[in-house]
């Protein structure tokens, strides 16, 4: 069977999920600590940049920018891709507003204008809701197909959400060097995300096994190259080993790197194995 959605789509799902994850983390960090921190300011900017890269990849896959505009000319409630495109647009706009508000440079007057319309907290909370939508939609998009691996269970949305947020925290942990408080708290939150992700993976595999047994279509995710990428990359490198390293109190940047690599491999394996 032909692979219709290839590397560009895998990268898009990975980056869009991570953009949502970073926004979620940065916004809640501000919200629960009651201050606007430097790390969250960096987070908003990175989230916006990642989103732009993700959209660029999407346009590359469609081959012409005008075709992305076509998506915005129609709204179709029953098509996750249509709803997702609108979600992407609104998340992008809200993300841009957040970047403006936190800017110290040329965008500051624009940020002040937005602050006159609503307080920052409102933009942050709207952004959190949109970030949850964005990260979840990357999984729901796959589930609305006839590919058994994607559509047989209701867990792909939750899996890509947990993985996207975990990637978001890890990217912030990778770039932050000075904020000891965030490094400690972020690591703790990352471990929670990883445990949730691992639990969702467990239910995903359980649902596939109970529903389909050793049926050839689903076994492709557990055997051969895709099995290696999914189990070795997505599960072991992406979740199990980082959880154990976090519990063992290991410091440094190894855990975030492993999580990011694992999350990419997880998506790669699911997207490719689903089309075999």
């Amino acid at each position, binding site marked *: 069977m*032909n692979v219709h959605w290839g590397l560009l789509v895998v990268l898009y799902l990975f980056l869009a999920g991570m953009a949502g994850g970073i926004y979620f983390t940065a916004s809640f960090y501000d919200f629960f600590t009651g201050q606007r921190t430097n790390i969250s300011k960096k987070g908003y900017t990175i989230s916006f940049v990642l989103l732009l890269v993700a959209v660029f990849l999407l346009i590359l896959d469609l081959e012409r920018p005008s075709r992305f505009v076509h998506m915005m000319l129609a709204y179709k409630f029953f098509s996750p*891709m249509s709803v997702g495109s609108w979600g992407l647009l609104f998340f992008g706009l809200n993300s841009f507003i957040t970047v403006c508000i936190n800017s110290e440079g040329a965008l500051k007057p624009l940020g002040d204008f937005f602050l006159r319309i609503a307080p920052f907290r409102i933009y942050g909370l709207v952004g959190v809701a949109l970030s949850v939508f964005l990260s*979840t939609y990357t999984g729901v998009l796959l589930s609305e197909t006839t590919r058994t691996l994607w559509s047989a269970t*209701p867990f792909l949305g939750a899996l890509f959400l947990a993985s996207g947020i975990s990637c978001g925290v890890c990217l912030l942990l990778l770039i932050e060097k000075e904020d000891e408080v965030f490094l400690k708290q972020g690591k703790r939150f990352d471990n929670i995300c990883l445990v949730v992700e691992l639990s969702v993976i467990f239910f995903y595999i359980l649902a596939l096994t109970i529903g389909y047994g050793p049926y050839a279509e689903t076994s492709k995710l557990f055997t051969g190259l895709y099995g290696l990428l999914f189990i070795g990359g997505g599960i072991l490198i992406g979740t199990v080993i980082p959880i154990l390293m976090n519990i063992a109190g290991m410091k440094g940047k190894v855990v975030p790197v492993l999580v990011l690599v694992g999350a990419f491999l997880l998506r790669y394996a699911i997207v490719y194995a689903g089309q075999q």
Partner: protein
Amino acid sequence: MRYAMLNDVTRCIGCRSCQVACKQWNDRKAEKTKNVGTFENPFELSGQTWKRVKFVETEKGDANWSFLTYQCNHCGDAGCMAVCPTNAIKRTKEGAVYIDEKICTGCKYCLNACPFHIPHIDEEKHIASKCNLCADRIASGLMPSCAKACPTGAIMFGSRDYILTVARERASFLSKNGKNKFTVYGENILGGLGVIYLLPDAPEVYALPERPKAPPAVNFVNVFSNSFVGLIAALILTFGAYASFKKGGEK
């Protein structure tokens, strides 16, 4: 009125006139094909090949070679149409499901949503491409080009009710007078197909799924279940963020 096509395996001789007629009428280009060890040519549908004849060899005592002319089935519940984000896939009042080339973005969602794996990418235009049941001919009171070209009457075209009646009668007659149990495929699945098949064997012999699965978007169950589970995960992670980031929780 909804129209349909009957592909009768018992009458097809594998001459491929339908393939040629389809290419000519729809201005599809010839493609370089590969010999993959069978007489099937081409071996699969593509952006330029909307119709092909499957060669199926079965053995029940004597070897038996049958031919199945195959293209888009114009489902009543068309998954491709349901998921298309730009409404580029439409249905005519006669029941033909077609792709509007001006609106299609080439996102390939329909390729992953079709239970028969029919749409393909037209590599030149980079848009989805598939049989349109010669909607332009039907609108002018003509039958699809493949049905017109078929020399043996293996492809019939008419109102769906009439086609189903013919298919049932033929299946009943052949089952009574032959060795095989004949099947009418496509009557009720996926909202009723616009292409009905008369088969001398079970559908899977011809690589037709017995119970083809519509993409969940058609009944919307997966969107809700996936979003609901996603929402639960989001609530757990929000609580996780609170537990991790709350004031005084840095120790």
